[in-house]
C-alpha cells in the first residue's frame, strides 16, 4: 500500500540561516507526537552562504526514505523558492519571507501549479525581537505549526530543552519568536486549509537515529574500544558520535594525522586484541588501501567504514553516490579474502555494524562497511532494538600455554576452514607474531613456493568458509512476480516504496535487497535469481557496479539498469516512471 497520510516539509535557505537545526527541531516535534519521520538534508560544501535544505517527511505510517514532492516549503530566502518551486505539489503551501520576496513573483509564469502563498515578514519580526535576523528560523517554525493548526505548547517544551543551556535571554527570544510566527499566521492566514490529518498512535517505543549514529551505536554494542580516524565528509559524524559516547563506554577515540595513520593504529589495536574501527570516505579509503591488504595477509581483524560520496578524486564532498563498490572490492594489491557489507537504513546499519566486528574476528579478515552520504546523514524512526538478539563472537583466541597444550604456538597453523587461533600479545608464557610478509606457520618470513601455496590456500579458503554466515538477500513482496527491482545498500527503502506505488497500479512486482555484497554465495543466489522475470537493477553510479558483479560472479544479466549519479539519492517517482516506461 502507498503511504496515504503524509506530508513533506522542506525548509530551505542559505547555509548559516539555521536551516538544518530547524529541520531537526521540526522532526523532534513530530517524533514526540508519536509520528514517523524521515529527515534528509541537502547541503553544500561550505559553512556560510550556499543553499541548504532540510527535508522532513512526516506520516502516521513508517517513512524510511526521501521524497521529492513538497507539501510545505518554508523558504527563508528568494533563491530557495527558485530552487524548490518545481517540486511543490498541487495545493501545497509556500511560507516565504515577505520582506525579501514580492507577491508578484509568486504568480504565473513563475508558477504553474496551484498553491497557497503564505507571506510572513520573517526578517522584520526577527528584528523586532532583537536587532538581528537570528530568529527567522524559529519564527518560521511558529508559522509552520500555525499553518498545520498544531499545538504550540509542545514546541515550547522542545525549545526550552534546547535553549535553556545557552542563556535565559536566548531561550526567551526563541519562545517569543515561535509565538510571533504562530500568531502572525493565525491573524492573517486563517483560511489556509489544514492539509495534514495524522492518526496519533500510543505505546510505541521509537528510536530516532541517523545512519551515522546507528553505525556508531552498532560499533559500541559490538564492544569497540579503539577508534582512530581523520575527518572526512560524510564519515565524520560517525567519528563524532563515537567520541561523544567514548567516556561512557570506555572507548579511546583518536584523531590521527592522516588516514594512513588512522587505519594502521586501528589494525595495531586489533593485533593487541581490542575491537577497533576506522571511518572515512572514498578519498581517505584510497590512502588506507595498503592496510586492507595488510589485514588480509596478516589475518588481523579490521573494520573500516567507507561512507561514500560523489567521486572520483575530491568529487562531490556533500553529495551521495554508490560508486566505491568496485573500488573496495579490489582495493589493495594481491589476492585475499574480505567482506563487504552495505546496510539499507539506520536500523540495519546498527545490527550489521555490530555483526561486522564478529565476522572480522571470527574469520580474521578486513570487513568494509559501505554507507553513503544519504544513509549516513538521513535520520529515521524505527522500533526499539532487539538487543537480546545480539551476541559478541570473538572467534578463536587461546588464553594460556596450558590451553594450547604446548609452548610452541603457530600463528598461521594450517586449518581446514583457514582460521587458526589467535594468541594476543601479553599472554603469559606465549609469544605471537603477525606479519605483512609472506610467512610460514610460525610467522617467519618465508619465500618457499610450497609454503606459499599452503598459506595462500589457507587464507583464500576463508572466502568459502565464511559463506554460511552470509545471509540471502531479502525479498520484499511475493517470491515470484512479473517485475523485480534489485538494489543494494541505501536504495532499499526507496525501491520498496516505488514497488508499493506500482502495486497500486496492479503491477506484479517485488524488491530484492542485498546487504552482503561480497563474497556472493552462488548456491544461495542462483535459486532466487533463476525464478525472476523482468529485472531492473537500481544503483547510484554510472557503470552499474553491482550489476557487473552479479554478472561476473553469478552470470546473472538484468533487463534494465536504472542509474543515477547527479549526487542525489533516488526518489520513488523516478523508479516508478522508469519501470512504467521501460518494463511495461
Amino acid at each position, binding site marked *: 500500500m502507498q503511504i496515504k497520510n503524509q506530508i513533506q516539509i522542506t525548509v530551505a535557505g542559505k547555509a548559516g540561516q539555521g536551516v538544518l537545526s530547524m529541520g531537526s527541531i521540526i522532526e523532534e516535534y513530530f517524533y514526540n507526537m508519536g509520528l514517523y519521520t524521515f529527515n534528509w538534508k541537502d547541503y553544500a560544501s561550505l559553512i556560510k552562504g550556499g543553499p541548504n535544505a532540510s527535508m522532513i517527511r512526516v506520516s502516521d505510517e513508517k517513512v524510511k526514505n526521501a521524497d521529492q514532492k513538497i507539501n510545505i516549503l518554508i523558504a527563508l530566502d528568494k533563491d530557495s523558492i527558485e530552487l524548490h518551486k518545481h517540486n511543490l505539489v498541487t495545493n501545497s503551501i509556500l511560507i516565504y519571507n515577505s520582506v525579501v520576496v514580492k507577491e508578484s513573483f509568486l504568480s504565473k509564469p513563475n508558477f504553474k501549479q496551484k498553491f497557497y502563498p503564505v507571506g510572513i515578514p520573517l526578517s522584520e519580526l526577527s528584528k523586532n525581537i532583537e536587532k538581528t535576523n537570528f530568529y527567522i528560523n524559529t519564527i518560521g517554525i511558529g508559522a509552520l505549526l500555525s499553518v498545520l493548526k498544531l499545538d504550540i505548547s509542545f514546541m515550547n517544551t522542545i525549545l526550552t530543552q534546547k535553549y535553556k543551556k545557552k542563556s535565559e535571554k536566548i531561550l526567551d527570544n526563541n519562545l517569543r519568536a515561535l509565538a510571533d510566527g504562530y500568531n502572525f499566521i493565525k491573524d492573517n492566514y486563517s483560511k489556509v486549509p489544514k492539509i495534514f490529518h495524522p492518526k496519533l498512535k500510543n505505546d510505541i517505543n521509537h528510536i530516532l537515529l541517523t545512519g551515522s549514529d546507528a553505525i556508531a551505536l552498532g560499533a559500541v554494542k559490538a564492544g569497540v574500544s579503539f577508534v582512530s580516524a581523520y575527518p572526512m565528509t560524510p564519515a565524520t559524524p560517525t567519528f563524532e558520535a563515537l567520541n561523544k559516547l567514548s567516556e561512557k563506554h570506555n572507548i*579511546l577515540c583518536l584523531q*590521527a594525522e592522516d588516514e*594512513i595513520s588512522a587505519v594502521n*593504529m586501528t589494525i*595495531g589495536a586489533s593485533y593487541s586484541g581490542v575491537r577497533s574501527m576506522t571511518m572515512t570516505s572514498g578519498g581517505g579509503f584510497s590512502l588506507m588501501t595498503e592496510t586492507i591488504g595488510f589485514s588480509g595477509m596478516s589475518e588481523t581483524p579490521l573494520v573500516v567504514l567507507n561512507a561514500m560520496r560523489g567521486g572520483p578524486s575530491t568529487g562531490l564532498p556533500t553529495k551521495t553516490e554508490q560508486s566505491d563498490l568496485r573500488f573496495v572490492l579490489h582495493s589493495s594489491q594481491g589476492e585475499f579474502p574480505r567482506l563487504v557489507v552495505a546496510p539499507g537504513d539506520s536500523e540495519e546499519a546498527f545490527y550489521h555494524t555490530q555483526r561486522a566486528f564478529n565476522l572480522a574476528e571470527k574469520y580474521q579478515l578486513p570487513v568494509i562497511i559501505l554507507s553513503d552520504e544519504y544513509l549516513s546523514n538521513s535520520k529515521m524512526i524505527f522500533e526499539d532494538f532487539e538487543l537480546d538478539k545480539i551476541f*559478541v563472537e570473538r572467534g578463536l583466541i587461546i588464553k594460556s600455554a596450558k590451553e594450547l597444550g604446548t609452548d*610452541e604456538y603457530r600463528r598461521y597453523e594450517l586449518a581446514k576452514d583457514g582460521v587458526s587461533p589467535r594468541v594476543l*600479545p*601479553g599472554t603469559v608464557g606465549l609469544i605471537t607474531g603477525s606479519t605483512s610478509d609472506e610467512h610460514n606457520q610460525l610467522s617467519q618470513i618465508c619465500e618457499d613456493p610450497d609454503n606459499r601455496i599452503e598459506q595462500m590456500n589457507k587464507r583464500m579458503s576463508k572466502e568459502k568458509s565464511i559463506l554460511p554466515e552470509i545471509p540471502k538477500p531479502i525479498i520484499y513482496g511475493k517470491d515470484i512476480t512479473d517485475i523485480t527491482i534489485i538494489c543494494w545498500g541505501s536504495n532499499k527503502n526507496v525501491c520498496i516504496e516505488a514497488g508499493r506505488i506500482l502495486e497500486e497500479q496492479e503491477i506484479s512486482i517485488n524488491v530484492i535487497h542485498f546487504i552482503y555484497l561480497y563474497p556472493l554465495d552462488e548456491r544461495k543466489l542462483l535459486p532466487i535469481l533463476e525464478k525472476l522475470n523482468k529485472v531492473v537493477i537500481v544503483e547510484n553510479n554510472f557503470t552499474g557496479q553491482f550489476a557487473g558483479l552479479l554478472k561476473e560472479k553469478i552470470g546473472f544479466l538484468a533487463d534494465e539498469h536504472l542509474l543515477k549519479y547527479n549526487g542525489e539519492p533516488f526518489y520513488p517517482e523516478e523508479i516508478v516512471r522508469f519501470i512504467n516506461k521501460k518494463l511495461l
Partner: protein
Amino acid sequence: MKKIKSQEKDIAKYNTQDKPNWCPGCGNFGIWVSLKNAITELEIPAYNVVLVGDIGCSGKMPYWLPYNHFNGLHGRSIPIAEGVKLANHKLHVIVIGGDGGLLSEGLQHFIHGAKRDIDITVLLHNNQLYGLTKGQNSSTSDKNYRSGTSIAEIVETPLNPSMLAISANATFVASGFAGNTKHLTQMIKQAILHRGFSFVNAYQPCVTYNYINTYSFYSTKSYNLEDIGYNPQDKTQALIKSMEIDDGDKFPLGVLYQNTNSKSFDERFFKNNDPLINKDLQKVDISASFAIKVKSK
C-alpha cells in the same frame, strides 16, 4: 621512569627457526645484540615485548628475536605501534625501522608520534641509504653519497633525525652507534624506561653500499656526551647539540634530550591504569546511549 615488575621474569620459549641473513659485518648485528641485551638486562618477560617491524634489512629484525612481533607496511610502523600500545599499555612496544621507513615514507608519523607522546620506543636503524634495494639514496644520506638513483650534479642536504624529533616535542632523544653495543644497550634501556615517545638514532654502517659512513667514520668522528658533562634536560641546548652533525664532522652519542616532567599520552588517558584490552565486551549496555521515546498516554 617505568617500574618493571619483578614477577614478569619468566622468559617465554620461542622458536626462531632462522638466523639473520644480513651481510657479514652489517651494522644491524650490533643493534640486534644491543636490543636483546637491553631487554634481558631490564628483565622484561618476552611475552610483554612487541616489536613492530618496518621494511628492509632492519625490518626483518623482529623475525630473529624471541619477542612478539607485528611486521607491518613500509613507513607505517609508528602508527601500528601506537595502536598496539594504546590497546594494551602494559606491553613494551618497540618500533624497528630504517631511515627510509621512519624518515621518508612515514615521516609524518614520526613527527606526529613525537608530538602525540605515546609511550613507545622508536629505534632508527640509520644506515643512510636503502640497503635491501641495493643502495639508493635515503633522506639521511650524506650529501656526497651517490647511488644509482641520484642526480650527479644535485646535492641534497640530509635530514637531521634528532633535531626533527626534539623540535616535534619528543620527550626522549638519544644517539648510539652499532659499533659500540655497550653504549647502545644503555641508550635502548633508557629509552624503554622513559615514559613517553622515546627515540634512539642508531648509526648503522652498511658494509656493502655505504662507502662514506663506515665503522671507522663513526669511530673517529663520534664522541660520548657523558664525557663532556652534557645536561640533556635543556631543550635549547639539545637543539643546538643535535645540529652538530650537520657539518658531517662531529657525531655526539648519548642522551641528547629528555623531558622527565611531562606525562605521556597513555599516562594521561588511562587514569585508572586499566588497559582497554580488559573491557568486558559482553557487558556493553547501550540502553542509555540513545534517545528513545516511550509514549504512553
